C-alpha cells in the first residue's frame, strides 16, 4: 500500500514539475523545433534582434536533424502534448496535418498584419502550404531542382547545354565527359524518400510515371516506371559517381565542389554552397525532361504552429517576424545577401543586392519554383498531391522501403524488374488503405 502511495506521489511530482515554467513575470517563452540547416542557423543568430523589439517574448530554439525533427514533431502533434509552439515542417507535412487539425490555420493571423503581403509569396510555394485555400504554414525557405554543370568541362568536349535540356541530352553529355578522373554526373543513390527518391521521382514524373491512378491503384509495374528507373540507374552505372548507394546531397556537393563530377542534378539551393572552380565555371539549366515539361520538384521548409500550442499569439508574432519582407532585409544587411533564404517571396528576386549575390541561378530557382505544380506532377492525373513525394501518411515508410529496393539494384543485388515488383506490392497495400 505504502509503495503505491510513494509511487503516485512521485509520478504526480514529476508531472507537475514538467508542466510548470514558461509564463512567469509577464514574458512568454515560445519553443521552436527547427531543422538543422544553414537558414535556421541564421535565424538563431538573429533572435537577439527579435528580442530587442519584443522584450516580452522569449524564444527557445531546439535544433534537430531532419529525421529526428520529423519523429519528435510527429509524436508531439499526434499526442497533442504542446511541447512546441512552432516547428519547421515541410510541404509534405502541411496539407496532411492541416487535414487532421494538428496545425493551426494561419490565414486569420496573417489577415491581422497588413504588412505581411501573402500575395508576395511565390505561387508554387503558397499553393503547397495551403489547405482549402488557407495558409497553414509560412515559408522560410523554398527550393526546386535544377541541373548544375561545369561549363569548362562540357566545353572541352564541345558540348553546350541548353536551358531546358532533355534527359537524353544530359545522359549523352554525361557519357561524353566521363573519364577516369571525372565522372559524368552525380545523382543521389542514398536510400530514403527525401534523398534518392526525390530526384528519381522527378525523372519518373517526366517519363510519365505515377505512383497511383485516380482510383489509388498502384502504378509501379508500368513501362514508364521501368524505363525511368532503368534510365536513372544505368546513367549512374555508366557515368555516375562511384559508391552511388551512399551518395546523398552532401556527398554530391563534395564531389562537385572538388571537380570530381561534371554535372549534378539536385536542389536549387546547392549552387549557394559552391566554392572555387565550381562557383566560377558553373552553368545552370532547368530540371531535365522527357515527356512532361517543368519536372523540377518543390520543397519548402516552413513555420507551422501546432493546434496544441497555448501561446499562439506570441508564436505568430515570431513566425510573422521571421518570414516577412523586413526579415529578408535584416538577413541581407546583417549577415550578407548570400545568406538570404531563397524561394519564399517574389519581391526577394527584385532586390538588386540579392540578384548580385545569387547570380546566375536566381532566375532558374524562381522560375522552377513558380512552375512546379504539386497537384499535376506528371502527365496523367493523380489522386495525390506532391511532386517528389505522395502526400499520404504511409509515404514516409513506403518511400523509404522502395528506395531501399532501388539501392539494392544500384549495388547489383537485384534487377530493376525485381525491385519494381516488390515496390508495386508495397504500394498496392498502401493504395488499399486510402479508400
Amino acid at each position: 500500500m505504502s509503495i503505491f502511495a510513494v509511487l503516485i506521489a512521485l509520478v504526480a511530482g514529476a508531472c507537475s514539475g514538467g508542466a510548470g515554467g514558461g509564463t512567469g513575470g509577464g514574458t512568454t517563452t515560445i519553443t521552436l523545433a527547427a531543422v538543422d540547416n544553414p537558414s535556421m542557423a541564421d535565424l538563431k543568430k538573429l533572435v537577439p534582434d527579435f528580442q530587442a523589439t519584443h522584450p516580452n517574448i522569449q524564444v527557445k530554439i531546439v535544433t534537430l536533424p531532419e529525421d529526428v525533427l520529423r519523429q519528435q514533431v510527429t509524436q508531439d502533434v499526434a499526442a497533442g502534448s504542446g511541447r512546441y509552439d512552432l516547428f519547421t515542417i515541410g510541404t509534405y507535412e502541411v496539407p496532411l496535418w492541416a487535414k487532421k487539425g494538428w496545425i493551426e490555420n494561419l490565414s486569420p493571423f496573417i489577415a491581422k498584419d497588413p504588412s505581411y503581403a501573402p500575395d508576395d509569396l511565390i505561387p508554387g510555394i503558397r499553393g503547397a502550404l495551403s489547405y482549402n485555400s488557407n495558409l497553414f504554414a509560412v515559408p522560410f525557405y523554398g527550393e526546386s531542382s535544377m541541373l548544375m554543370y561545369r561549363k569548362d568541362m562540357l566545353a572541352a568536349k564541345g558540348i553546350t547545354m541548353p536551358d531546358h535540356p532533355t534527359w537524353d541530352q544530359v545522359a549523352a553529355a554525361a557519357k561524353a565527359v566521363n573519364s577516369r578522373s571525372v565522372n559524368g554526373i552525380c545523382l543521389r543513390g542514398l536510400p530514403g524518400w527525401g534523398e534518392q527518391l526525390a530526384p528519381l521521382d522527378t525523372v519518373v514524373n517526366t517519363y510519365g510515371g505515377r505512383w497511383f491512378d485516380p482510383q489509388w491503384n498502384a502504378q509501379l509495374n508500368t513501362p514508364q516506371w521501368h524505363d525511368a528507373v532503368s534510365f536513372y540507374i544505368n546513367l549512374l552505372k555508366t557515368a555516375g559517381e562511384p559508391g552511388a548507394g551512399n551518395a546523398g546531397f552532401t556527398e554530391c556537393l563534395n564531389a562537385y565542389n572538388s571537380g570530381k563530377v561534371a554535372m549534378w542534378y539536385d536542389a536549387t539551393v546547392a549552387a549557394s554552397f559552391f566554392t572555387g572552380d565550381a562557383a566560377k565555371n558553373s552553368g545552370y539549366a532547368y530540371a531535365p525532361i522527357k515527356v512532361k515539361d517543368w519536372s523540377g520538384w518543390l520543397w519548402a521548409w516552413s513555420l507551422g504552429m501546432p493546434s496544441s500550442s497555448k501561446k499562439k499569439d506570441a508564436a505568430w508574432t515570431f513566425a510573422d517576424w521571421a518570414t516577412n519582407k523586413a526579415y529578408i532585409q535584416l538577413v541581407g544587411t546583417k549577415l550578407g545577401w548570400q545568406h538570404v533564404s531563397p524561394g519564399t517571396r517574389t519581391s526577394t528576386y527584385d532586390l538588386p543586392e540579392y540578384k548580385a549575390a545569387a547570380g546566375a541561378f536566381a532566375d532558374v530557382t524562381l522560375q522552377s519554383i513558380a512552375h512546379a505544380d504539386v497537384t499535376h506532377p506528371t502527365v496523367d492525373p493523380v489522386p495525390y498531391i506532391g511532386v517528389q513525394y505522395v502526400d499520404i501518411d504511409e509515404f514516409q515508410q513506403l518511400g523509404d522501403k522502395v528506395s531501399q529496393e532501388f539501392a539494392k539494384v544500384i549495388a547489383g543485388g537485384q534487377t530493376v524488374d525485381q525491385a519494381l515488383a516488390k515496390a508495386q506490392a508495397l504500394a498496392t497495400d498502401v493504395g488499399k488503405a486510402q479508400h
Partner: protein
Amino acid sequence: MSSIAGSGGVRVQTAASVARRAAWLRRLPLLPAFIYVILVTQIPFLLTIYYSFFSWNLLKPGSFKFTGLDNYARLLTDESIRIAVLNTVVLTVAVIGISVVLGLAVATLLNSEVFGKGLMRTLMIAPFLIMPTAGALIWKDTLLNPLFGLLPYLLTPFGLGRVDWVNQYPMVAVVAVEVWRWTPFMMLIILAGLQSQNPEVLEAARVDGANSFQAFRRITLPLVRPFLELGALLGSLFVVQTFDSIYMLTFGGPGEDTTNIPFLLYLVAFQGFSIGQASAIGVVAVILTTIIATVALRTLFSIFNVEARR
C-alpha cells in the same frame, strides 16, 4: 484488528508486528532503487504489452482500437519479420562465432610471455571502449568508403580497389564492424579463464611428452570452455540488440539485407508510427532475449559453483 483477543494473542501479534517492522526497516534503504526499477522498467513493459493488443497508428487519429492478437498474428505472416529474424540469427551467429575464435587466439597470445604484453592488451581492448556510433562512422567513412577509404586503397593491388563494401556486401560490413567491437570483450573473458589455469598442469603435460597443440587441445581448452560459453552467451545477448552500427552503416539496407529485429522495430515505430505493431515486435524481442539471458545466467552460476567447489 485482533487486539480484542486474549492477552496471549496480543503478545504474539506484537512480536509478529515487531518482526514485520524490522523487516521493513531493513528493506527501506532498498525502496528507492526498487521504485526506480519499477518506474523505468516494469511500467513501460506492461504498457508495451497493453499496446501490443491494439491497432494504433500515431498518424491516424482515432485508430486506437482493441484488436486482440492481430499484431502477433501478423508477425507470423509478415515477410519483413521473417527476413529480420533471419538477419538477426545470421548476424549473431557470425559475430559471436568469429569473435570467440579471434578472442581465444588473442587471449592465448596475451597469456604467453610476449614482448609488450601490457601495451598490446590495452590496444586490443580499445575497440570495445569506442562509442558504437562513432566506431561505425569511422568504419563507414574512413575505412570502407570506396573513394577515399583505407581498405579499398590497401586492396587496390588485389583488384578490389573500388569495391563499395557497405552496399555490395552489407552483411559482411556489419559483421566486420561488430566482430571488431566484440573480439576484445571475448578476449577479456577468455583471458580471465586462461589466467586462472594452474601452470603446473601444463608443465606436467609437457613432461609427459605432449606438444603445445595437444596441451592446448586436451588441457587448456576444456578449462576455458565455460568461459567461452559465457562469453558467447553474454555476447549474443548484446549482439541480438545491435542497432547503432546498422543505423550508421547501412540503415538496414540495401533492400532489407541488414534489417534485424531491433532495426525493424525502429522502422515500424518511428518511420511508420505503428505503435501497436511495434509493441508486439518489442514483446517478442524481449521474450527471445530473456531466453538467451536465462541460459547465460545459468552458465554464469555454474562457473561460480565450479570455482566454489575448488
